[in-house]
């Protein structure tokens, strides 16, 4: 069986409706004949954009973990919680399944995503041909789990909304919540800008 990709035959599959069409010759930018989306063989500047977003996310990962995400004021005093101390609180208060869940969603997943996407971008950049199938699977998994990192942001929101009973108890969001939200959004954008087809490409195709 002869294997050929759309790009090798000069065809482009639309990234929105997946229609395969042949772009007019010597057109700088063209639109999908069915859905009107802009056509490109590979996501424009995929590797460069992925790296840029990954680096921004990696930088913000530090303040996201150091700054408090939640500030609790009650008659017993003020308590500042970071992502990790929130997990520790769940662990010591006996709800260890939830502690594990929150730890995985807000600390492990963003970190794994940063590492795994860096690996995918680096290997795609070198046009490596090792474990292409596994790398595609890894990408698919990253796309699926990334959103679950938003968990802690939602927890902060619910607590902030509920706990505001004056001097008795009051919960405020800390700066860490914003940094963390930014990390989640940036890693999601990074995995969206990565083009998994680059894992399989041998020759350089025109993009954009």
């Amino acid at each position: 069986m002869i294997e050929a990709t759309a790009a090798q035959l000069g065809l482009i599959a639309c990234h929105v409706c997946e229609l395969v069409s042949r772009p007019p010759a010597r057109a700088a930018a063209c639109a999908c004949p069915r859905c009107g989306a802009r056509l490109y063989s590979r996501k424009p500047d995929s590797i460069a954009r992925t790296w840029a977003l990954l680096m921004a996310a990696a930088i913000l990962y530090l303040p996201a973990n150091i700054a408090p995400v939640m500030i609790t004021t009650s008659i017993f005093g003020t308590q500042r919680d970071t992502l990790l101390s929130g997990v520790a609180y769940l662990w010591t208060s006996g709800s260890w399944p939830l502690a594990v869940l929150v730890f995985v969603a807000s600390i492990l997943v963003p970190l794994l995503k940063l590492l795994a996407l860096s690996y995918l971008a680096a290997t795609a950049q070198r046009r490596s041909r090792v474990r292409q199938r596994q790398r595609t699977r890894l990408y698919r998994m990253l796309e699926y789990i990334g959103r679950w990192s938003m968990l802690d942001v939602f927890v902060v929101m619910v607590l902030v909304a509920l706990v505001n009973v004056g001097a008795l108890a009051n919960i405020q969001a800390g700066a860490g919540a914003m940094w963390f939200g930014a990390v989640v959004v940036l890693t999601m954008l990074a995995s969206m800008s990565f083009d998994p087809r680059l894992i399989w490409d041998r020759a350089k195709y025109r993009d954009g």
Partner: protein
Amino acid sequence: MKHSTLIACHECDLLQREVALPPGGKAICPRCTATLYTHSTDSIDRVLALVLAAALLFAIGNLFPVVSMEIQGQRTEALVWQGAWRLHQEGETLVGILVFLTAFIFPLVQIVGLLAILLPLRLGLTPHYLVPAFRTVEQAKPWSMVEVFMLGVLVSLVKLAHMATVIPGVGMWAFFGLIIVLAWASSTLNPHEVWARLDVLEAEPAP
């Protein structure tokens, strides 16, 4: 020039010929194992029913409190937009916007968009906005995070249970229903079928 029978894998760009599938079957890329397309008939009817249910549940979930809490006789309640608004009031406007977008706006775009597409399709109408609307719905999908939001609600309930009485509200049950119905709808919805319908309608406009 169109190649209606040729498809390219969206994950590795391998070209292959579209083949007919048995009911419930799915086509998998031989090179990278991505799911290419699934077989479903009348998916539009079933998805329309599910999306109507989702619209109802979304309305209930946003009109009735998701959770309420009691500390020494003082009762507070939380709705999605109230939570976002409180974040804004306390200076965390960006977090408030993020939460409002992912738990309210994008799910709303998904539900209203699908209704606006499937209802006319079902009635055989072809308003001009169908194609851009479906594109918007597909692009809003990864940012619509109702299920993550509900998991967040559960975690905060456990955190609060130590210091106060927390009461799950009607909104919470509606949101749980919404998660199931939305997941069901998006697994039933066959984008290939919708695009094919749009293609046919555009080629031969209804008299």
